[in-house]
C-alpha cells in the first residue's frame, strides 16, 4: 500500500503542476494508476466490490481535486468504478444463473452488504433489479406488469443457507479482482487505441480536394487527417495557430512532415477563411453529456463562424473524453486561466502596472483562458471510437459507460 500511496501522490503532484498535458495521456496515466491501486488493494472477504470502489473513489477524488479541469481524470475514475460494479454484477448474475447455490449465496451477501445493508431477502431483489438494468425487461413482464420478483422466492431460499459457507470466498475475491483488472486493461487498451479507431472513419468523412480547418493541436486530429491522406485522398488543411500557446504550429509541423498541404493562419483569420473551408475538424478536450464540447480556446469562435457559413463542425473525441456531467453542474470547472505572461511581456509593461497601486485595485488585468465551451447546437457531428453521433445522442452514449451512482464523487 505505501508504494501505491506514493505513486498516487506523485501523480497528484504532476496533475497539480499541469505536468501532464493532453487528455489522452492523462487518462492513460490515471487508468494505470488505478489499476495498480486495485491490484494492490487487499480486499476484505466480506464485500470486495464495495471495498474496491471505496479505494478507487478515494484515489479518484484526490486526482480530480488535483486538476479539476482535466475532466478525463474524472471520466476514467468513473469508468473504473463502473467496471468494478459491472464485474461484480456479472459475477453475481453468473452465480445466480449458475447452479452453485453456495456461490450464489455468497454473491448475494456481497451485494447486500455493499449496497444498502438490507437483509438477505432484499439483497436478492437488489440483484434482480440490477440484472434488469443489464437486460431489457421481456415483453411478457412488461405486459403482465409483474416485476422480476419472480426470482425472489428462489433467492430467498438461497439466502437462507448463505451464512453457512465461507470456504470459497477467497477464490471469488480473486476472481472479482482478476476480472476488474482484466477489464481495466481493456480500458487502457481502448484509450490507447482510440486514435486508430477514430482515424479509421476518416475516409468516410474526407473527400478529395477538401479544405479542412483545424485548431489547436490534437493527436486525434492528426491521426484522423493522416489516415485520410494515407488512403490517397488529397486535401488541404488550414491550421489556426492557437495563440498564445501556438499548438497549431506543432500540428502544422507534424502534418507537413506527413506530406499534407498545410497552411497556418492566425486565429483572427478564422472567420475570413471559413467561407472557403469545407469542414472544421477539432479535437475535443472533453465532451459533456449534453453534447457540448470543451475544446482549446478559440474553438467557440470557429464553431460560430462555421455555423454562420454552414460548414460542418466535426468533433473528434476518444471515449475517455466523454464526460457524464452537464456543463451547468456546479462542480464542473470548465475553464482555467493560464499565466498572463504568455500574452504580455511584463517587462515591457512594468511601468504601467503600478498605476493602480494607489487606488488598491490593479488597472491592468490579463485574461488568458485555456478552454472554450461550444454549445451542442454548434456541433454537427461527434466522431468517437464507436462511430459518428449526433450531439443530442451523447447523453445516451455516455450512459453506457458510467453508472449513475458515480456521477457525483
Amino acid at each position: 500500500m505505501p508504494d501505491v500511496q506514493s505513486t498516487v501522490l506523485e501523480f497528484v503532484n504532476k496533475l497539480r503542476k499541469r505536468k501532464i498535458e493532453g487528455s489522452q495521456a492523462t487518462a492513460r496515466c490515471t487508468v494505470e494508476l488505478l489499476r495498480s491501486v486495485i491490484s494492490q488493494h487487499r480486499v476484505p472477504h466480506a464485500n470486495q466490490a464495495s471495498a474496491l470502489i471505496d479505494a478507487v473513489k478515494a484515489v479518484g477524488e484526490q486526482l480530480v481535486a488535483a486538476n479539476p479541469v482535466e475532466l478525463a481524470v474524472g471520466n476514467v475514475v468513473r469508468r473504473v468504478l463502473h467496471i468494478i460494479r459491472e464485474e461484480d454484477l456479472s459475477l453475481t448474475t453468473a452465480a445466480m444463473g449458475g447452479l452453485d447455490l453456495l456461490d450464489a449465496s455468497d454473491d448475494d451477501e456481497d451485494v447486500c452488504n455493499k449496497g444498502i445493508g438490507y437483509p438477505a431477502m432484499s439483497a436478492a431483489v437488489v440483484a434482480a433489479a440490477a440484472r434488469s438494468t443489464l437486460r431489457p425487461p421481456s415483453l411478457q413482464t412488461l405486459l403482465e406488469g409483474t416485476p422480476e420478483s419472480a426470482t425472489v422466492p428462489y433467492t430467498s431460499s438461497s439466502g437462507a443457507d448463505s451464512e453457512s459457507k465461507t470456504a470459497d470466498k477467497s477464490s471469488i475475491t480473486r476472481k472479482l479482482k482478476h476480472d476488474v483488472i482484466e477489464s481495466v486493461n481493456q480500458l487502457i487498451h481502448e484509450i490507447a487505441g482510440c486514435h486508430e479507431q477514430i482515424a479509421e472513419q476518416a475516409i468516410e468523412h474526407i473527400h478529395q480536394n477538401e479544405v479542412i480547418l483545424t485548431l489547436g493541436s490534437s493527436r486525434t486530429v492528426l491521426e484522423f487527417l493522416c489516415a485520410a491522406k494515407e488512403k490517397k485522398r488529397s486535401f488541404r488543411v488550414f491550421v489556426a495557430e492557437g495563440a498564445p500557446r501556438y499548438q497549431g504550429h506543432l500540428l502544422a509541423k507534424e502534418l507537413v512532415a506527413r506530406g499534407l498541404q498545410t497552411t497556418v493562419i492566425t486565429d483572427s483569420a478564422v472567420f475570413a477563411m471559413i467561407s472557403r473551408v469545407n469542414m472544421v475538424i477539432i479535437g475535443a478536450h472533453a465532451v459533456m453529456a449534453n453534447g457540448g464540447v470543451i475544446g482549446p480556446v478559440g474553438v467557440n469562435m470557429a464553431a460560430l463562424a462555421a455555423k454562420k457559413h454552414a460548414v460542418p463542425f466535426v468533433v473528434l473525441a476518444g471515449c475517455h473524453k466523454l464526460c457524464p456531467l452537464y456543463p451547468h453542474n456546479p462542480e464542473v470547472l470548465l475553464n482555467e486561466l493560464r499565466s498572463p505572461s504568455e500574452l504580455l511581456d511584463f517587462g515591457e509593461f512594468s511601468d504601467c502596472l503600478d498605476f493602480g497601486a494607489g487606488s488598491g485595485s490593479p488597472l491592468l488585468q490579463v485574461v488568458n483562458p485555456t478552454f472554450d465551451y461550444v454549445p451542442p447546437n454548434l456541433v454537427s457531428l461527434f466522431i468517437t471510437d464507436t462511430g459518428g453521433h449526433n450531439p443530442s445522442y451523447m447523453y445516451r452514449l455516455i450512459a453506457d459507460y458510467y453508472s449513475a451512482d458515480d456521477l457525483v464523487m
Partner: protein
Amino acid sequence: MDPRRVPLAVPKVRRVGFFTSIEPTPEPQRPNRSQSGPVEAATSSSPLSDSPSGNFISPVQIPPSRHHSDNLTSRAAPVPVPGPAAFRRHLAHDRSLHVGSYNPADSLLGTSPPSSNGELSEDSGSLFGFQRSDSAKLSSSFPNGGFDLTMAVRAPQEFESKIATVPASEGRKKTAEVSGKSESAVTTKAQKEKEQKSLKEKTTKAERRAIQEAQRAAKAAAKGEGSRRVDDSGRAKPGKATKQPQVKKEGLPVTSSVSEKKTVVVEKEKRMDVPQTQMQYDDKSRVEKAKKRAVVEQTESKNKVELFLHLPQYERGNQLPNLSSNIFTLDTIHHAVYKVGLQHLAGDISGDNARCIAMLQAFQEAIKDYTTPPMKDLTMDLTAKINGYVSFLIECRPLSMSMGNAIRFLKNQIRKLPVELSVSEAKASLCSDIGRFIEEKIVTADKVIVKHAVTKIRDGEVVLTYGFSCVVEMILLYAHEIGRKFRVVIVDSRPNLEGQRLLRRLVSRGLDCTYTHINAISYIMRDATRVFLGASSIFSNGTLYSRVGTACVAMVANAFSVPVIVCCEAYKFHERVLLDSICSNELGDPDAIANIPSRANMKRSKTMENNKNLQFLNLMYDSTPSEYISMIVTDYGMIPPTSIPVIVREYRREHLLL
C-alpha cells in the same frame, strides 16, 4: 429659325433618348441642353423650341442633373418634368456651362496619365474620342464668343448636318468648317487646321475659351501635351472614334454642344466613380507590365497560398535597405513620398488614418516642390506625377480604401484647378485643399465621431475593443476625461499585437483595462456590454472592412447579443461591394506568423520554410457582414449599416463639388 428647328428637333431628340444607354449617344443630347440654357438666358428664344427638347431630354438627363447640380430641387423631382428641368436649367445654367467646359479636361487628365489599369484607360481612350470630337465642335462654335453668336452658328450647323449624311469623319470636318465659316471673322485659320488635324486639342482649348482667354503660354503647353495624349488614346479605338461623329451629327442639330458635353462628362465621371478594378495578380501579362514600371524590386515569395494568387505575394524586408539607400538619388519620386512609401513598406506607419495623412502630407510637400516642366500643362503633368507616386506607394504596400478615396479627391482637385491660376497659385490651392481634407475629413470627423460615440458609454459599462483604432482610443480617453466610470477590454491578435499599444496608452492615462487575445473572445464577451470597433473601410453593402479578426469579434458579440458599434470617418466609405475576405485583401509578411515568440521553437521555422507543403498566411483584413453591426458612428451621425450606400452617394457628390 424656330419653326425650322422644332420639326427637326423632335424626332431627333427622341432618338437620342433611346440611345442614352449606349455610351456614344448621350453626346448628341448634350449640346441641346446647355445651348438652350444660354439661349434662354441671352436671347430668350421661343419656349417652343426649348420645351420639347427639355421634355424629351429629361429622361436622359436625370443622371447628369443628379451629379452636377447641388441644388436640391433637381433631386426632389426624380423624373424631371419640363417645368423643373427648365427651372433647373435657369438656376444652374452658368454652372452647368462651367462644368461642361471644365470637366472634359478633368476627365482627360484623370484618365490619360499612365494608369496601372489597362482596361480602364483603353475605355477612357475611347471616351476621349467622343469627347474630343464634341469639344471640337464646341470650340468651333464658341470661339466667336457671345452666346447669341453661337446660336447663330448652331443653326447652320444643324442644317448642314441634317442635310449631309456624309461619311462620318468627313462630315464632321465639314460641319466644323461650315461653322467656322459662318462664324467667319474671328476663328483663325490655324485653329481650324488644328481642329481638323487633331480634334483632341480642342478639348483643352474649348475649356479655356469657355472660362477665359487668359494664360496663353500655359495653353500652348497644354495643347502640346494634350494632343499627344489624345492621339495615344485615340489610337486605342479608332473604329469607335470614327463611328462616333456620325451619331453625333445626327443628334447634333437639336442639341447644344455644352450640354452634350455635360452628359459625356457625367458618363465619364460616373465611370470614373465606378471603382477601378483592382489589379489581379494572377493575370500574368499585367503583372509583367506592372513590373517593368516598378521602382521597388520585389521578389515573389516562393511559397504562395493558392487561394490568394490574385493578391500580391512578395517577400518582405529584403528590398528595404536597397531602397533606403537610394532615397536621394531617385528623381522620379519625390523624397517625401519616397519616405512615406518606405515607412509603409517597413510598417512604421500603420492605421488607416495615419497612413492616409502621411501620404497626403507627402503629396503636399511634393506639390510644393513641384515645378511645371516647360511645354507642359500643370494639371496633366501633376496628375501624371501623382499617379507615379501612387503606383510607387502601391508597390510599397497596397493602398487602403480610404487612401484611394483621398487620392481620388486630390486628383479631382487638380482636375478642377481653374486654368487661369498661376503655377504657384495652383500649388497653394492644392496644398490648402489637401490640408482642408485632412482637417475636415479626418481630424474634425474624428472629433464629431468622438462626440457622438461617447454618449454610448455610460457608467459601469464594459467596453470591448479590438486591435488599435485611433478613433476608438480618442473615444475612450474622452469618455474617461469627462468622468465616465467604465472598464475597457482590449482584445488583441497576432502578429501585430496592436492592442498592446492601445493598452499602454490607456493604462498610462489611468483607464481600467483588461487585456486578452482573440481566442479568448468568447470567454471575455460575457463581461462586455459594448463593442467599439474601428474600420479601414465600409463598403456600400454595409460590409465592414477592417483589421483581420474584427469579423470574429463582431460575430461573437452578436452571438452574445452585445451591440457592435463601428466608428468610421465618412471618407473611408467606399462604393464597392464586398462579400468575403478573399477577393479583396492584403497579405502581410508570412514570416511574421512563422516566427512565434516562444522560446524553443525558433530553430524549426528555418527547416520548415523549405517545405512547399507548408504555407503561412498572414491576412491583413477581413470583412464583417453588415448584420453583425448594430450601428456605425460617422461624421454624419449614427447610422445603421444599411445607410452606407446613401452616405456614399451623397458624400461622393459633395466630394466632387468640394
